[in-house]
């Protein structure tokens, strides 16, 4: 009797482990249009309305616990914000003249319309789910291909770049955040125009790394980083140019390339609403 129980237990465990490994290997090896991806797409399609309803119903609970969390974080944020305020006061004085000049230049070149996100047809979407582990920085949103959402469309919020759409079903989509380890965004330093690639530092959601900056490129703490809009001289990036990504917090000089640390502008841990830019560069898109 005991032997039978042990054999049964081991058989179930072996079966489940084998099943997991088969799933993992098959999924990892197949293309995005493969069978397992199709099953996943169908499942997300069915679950999205439930997830949406649960997200709405649980919002008060989320807000309550969020309030506790925010209170705990508030002290550290206050000190950090005081320091930032001091820096910004100094910067504001320096920038006042530059702002006046920029406004005049914008009028001359009519650039304000070009850089305005309105021309990219932003679609406001609600975040209905989020990956719980630090290894997957993704959120589920309540808009899908039925609303014109397509894979690779950029996603922003009121503060800056959030990520891009990586998976679409008719009524929901998955957005991979710029803090996911698969993410890479071509970017430039706003003040000097130096180009690089922004990648996450896995494990630290408040730190991004701008890589491949030459030692001669002018970068200083406090500089702003925006999307470059190009991946090379000829190739367009999926991200429109000029979307704010973050602010330089540290510059490491001890390498062939400069290592630039950036704090993202978007509050990626507390996203409630995001905007998907439906019209990609060059006027394509629905």
């Amino acid at each position, binding site marked *: 009797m005991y032997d039978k129980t042990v054999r049964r237990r081991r058989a179930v465990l072996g079966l489940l482990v084998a099943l997991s490994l088969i799933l993992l290997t098959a999924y990892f090896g197949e293309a995005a249009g493969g069978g397992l991806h199709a099953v*996943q797409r169908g499942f*997300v399609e069915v679950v999205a309305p439930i997830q949406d309803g649960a997200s709405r119903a649980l919002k008060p609970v989320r807000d309550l616990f969020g309030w506790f969390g925010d209170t705990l974080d508030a002290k550290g944020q206050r000190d950090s914000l005081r320091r930032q305020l001091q820096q910004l006061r100094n910067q504001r004085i320096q920038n006042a003249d530059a702002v006046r000049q920029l406004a005049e230049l914008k009028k001359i070149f009519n650039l304000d319309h070009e850089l305005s996100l309105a021309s990219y047809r932003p679609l406001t979407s609600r975040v209905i789910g*989020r990956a*719980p582990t*630090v290894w997957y920085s*993704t959120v589920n949103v309540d808009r899908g291909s039925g609303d014109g959402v397509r894979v690779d469309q950029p996603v922003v919020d009121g503060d800056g770049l959030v990520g891009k759409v*990586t998976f679409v079903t008719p009524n929901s989509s998955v957005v991979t955040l710029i803090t996911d*380890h698969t993410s890479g965004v071509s970017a430039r330093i706003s003040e000097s125009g130096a180009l690089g690639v922004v990648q996450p530092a896995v*494990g630290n959601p408040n730190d991004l790394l701008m890589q491949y900056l030459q030692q001669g490129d002018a970068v200083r703490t406090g500089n702003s980083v925006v999307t470059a809009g190009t991946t090379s001289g000829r190739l367009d990036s999926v991200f429109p140019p000029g979307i704010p990504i973050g602010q330089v917090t540290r510059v490491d000089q001890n390498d062939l390339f400069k290592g630039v640390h950036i704090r993202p502008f978007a509050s990626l*841990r507390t996203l409630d609403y995001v905007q998907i830019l439906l019209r990609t560069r060059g006027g394509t898109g629905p």
Partner: protein
Amino acid sequence: MMITPQLGVRIAVLAVVATIVEIAAVSQVSIFGVSADLSPLVVMSVGLLTGSITGAVVGFGVGLLLDLTLVQTLGVSSLIYLGVGYWAGRIRELRDPQAALTPLILGAAATAGATCGYAVIQFLLGVDAPVSLLLVRQIVTTIVVNTLIALPVYALVRRWLEPSLPDDPRRRRRRAYTTGGLSPLSRA
């Protein structure tokens, strides 16, 4: 432990509800810069209450639900959580711990096992970006936050499953003593 149809239904409902609550609410609340992770706690609680086979099956199911819903690599979470459920069930079968703080300790261990398991599998599959040392801090903070909520989560799971759980001989004995039925004093 024999799984009755009623218990099976309760476990299935628990797995689905826990996954939805996890994705739609818990993972969006940030405490000390991380969010709590309900899944290892729920799987650990089911394993601890029902045994290794049920724990492994529930762990596999919860992991599969998570991977499907969040469009993650299928099989990763299933593999991790089936290990958590099986291990919690084996602890029940081998040691049958009765201390009130057992769920708290096992909750911490389950979370540690799950987060480290994710890290190992991700490194095996290949990580495209640089990894910060702060990842260790994130993992430790997640374990601490999960440890804090392990007891209430276990209590909720037990409360939900208890009506369908087979009567525990120890509980029956305790009840008999308190009502005087089997007490040696009453026989004296």
